[in-house]
């Protein structure tokens, strides 16, 4: 493996992660009841919702890293912010792909301006701008500060966007989470296990990404 110092821990981490993912898949396929109307399509949620959760967690970490960077001017937090922003966008894209797959099966149309989906989409756009700012902002010392601020602003904007979109299209109200609670009990164990797996996966990925970013600095 690449990061010699982390070699063993990294290998263990990845192996555990693969095992967890397999258990998760088995759980989803065989260990959870089919929901009456949605049937197999409902099982998309076991991937869709954890992805969304992890994406928002990631953007929250961008916020924290941004505040810490502005306070301490330690580039450790800048790298953490960049890694979290990348991963957040990565999972946001997954959310934006898996959401319409479910919607096209259940609603018959791929995209509606459903509040959660719209908020996620706007966040994706903001973070596209974030990476452009990182790319074209100039000296990395300045860009680090700008990125920290944008990360904070983006997170402040999320609740406002969500509220505005929610009242903007009040007729669309079919939220995954709301329906989840109405379903048979067997669902929840599988769902929480998946949530746990993805959170672990996320922290593994964050660890790898920050490791690579700090390696890059050391090599310079």
């Amino acid at each position, binding site marked *: 493996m690449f990061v010699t110092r982390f070699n063993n821990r990294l290998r263990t981490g990845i192996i555990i992660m693969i095992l967890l993912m397999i258990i998760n898949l088995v759980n989803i396929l065989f260990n959870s009841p089919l929901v009456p109307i949605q049937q197999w399509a409902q099982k998309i949620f076991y991937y869709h919702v954890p992805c969304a959760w992890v994406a928002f967690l990631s953007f929250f970490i961008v916020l924290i890293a941004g505040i810490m960077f502005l306070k301490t001017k330690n580039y450790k937090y800048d790298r953490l912010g960049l890694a979290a922003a990348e991963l957040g966008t990565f999972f946001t894209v997954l959310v934006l792909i898996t959401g319409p797959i479910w919607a096209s099966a259940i609603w018959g149309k791929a995209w509606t301006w459903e509040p959660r989906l719209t908020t996620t989409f*706007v966040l994706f756009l*903001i973070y596209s701008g974030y990476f452009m700012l990182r790319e074209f902002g100039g000296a990395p010392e*300045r860009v680090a500060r700008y990125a920290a601020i944008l990360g904070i602003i983006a997170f402040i*904007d999320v609740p*406002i966007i969500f509220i505005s979109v929610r*009242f903007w299209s009040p007729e669309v109200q079919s939220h995954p989470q709301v329906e989840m609670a109405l379903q048979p009990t067997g669902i929840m164990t599988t769902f929480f296990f998946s949530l746990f797996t993805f959170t672990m996966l996320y922290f593994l990925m964050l660890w790898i990404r920050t490791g690579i970013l700090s390696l890059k600095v050391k090599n310079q």
Partner: protein
Amino acid sequence: MFLRLLKKDLLVEFRSREVSASMLTFGLAVIMIFSFSINISPDLFRRFAPGLYWIMVLFIAVLGLHRMFSHEKEFDTFSMIISAPVERGLIFLAKWVSGVLFLTVAEILITLPFLLFLQVGIPEQWVILIVIILLGNIGIMAIGSLVSGLAMRAKMSEVLLPILLFPLVSPQIIATVQATTAVFDGKPLASWQLWLNLMITFALVFGLAGYLFFEHITEE
């Protein structure tokens, strides 16, 4: 001190007239294009008018925001201003207020042609409409001045500014368009109180964010 900074921004603009002139002529050109390209009955157009109006305002605002720091970049005047013993948040507040003023001046001259040339007609609650437009300007310019400061020193700032601004300002646009539509339809205040609250919240949140973060934006 705030008044001195504001006076400076206004005097510079008064001498060069760059911001207001570009916003004004651009706005008139957009109205012309609207009237050519949307060839439908006035009744139908009235339904689209609020949306089109705010699209136009947003584009005008972006145009003005590009010029916001242009005179301060040319002779490195921005360095002179930030190195003065002045609280940097006040520099932001002066930019914000002057930006709102320029945008409002341009709108005074554009709104009437928009309503008359496009045969929308002046709504009965025109006083409330003015209040909404002012609130909209304040919100757009709050986040606009902040993002303009972020994009100012970057390469490709012309591209970066709208890319960063549009998603961040989206809740404000939703709120203003909804409120404007309600006023055009002559609905009572209670039915769109929410949008009013949202606009005020947006302006306050991003005004405060700009005031607090501008210190980190200004330095190179």
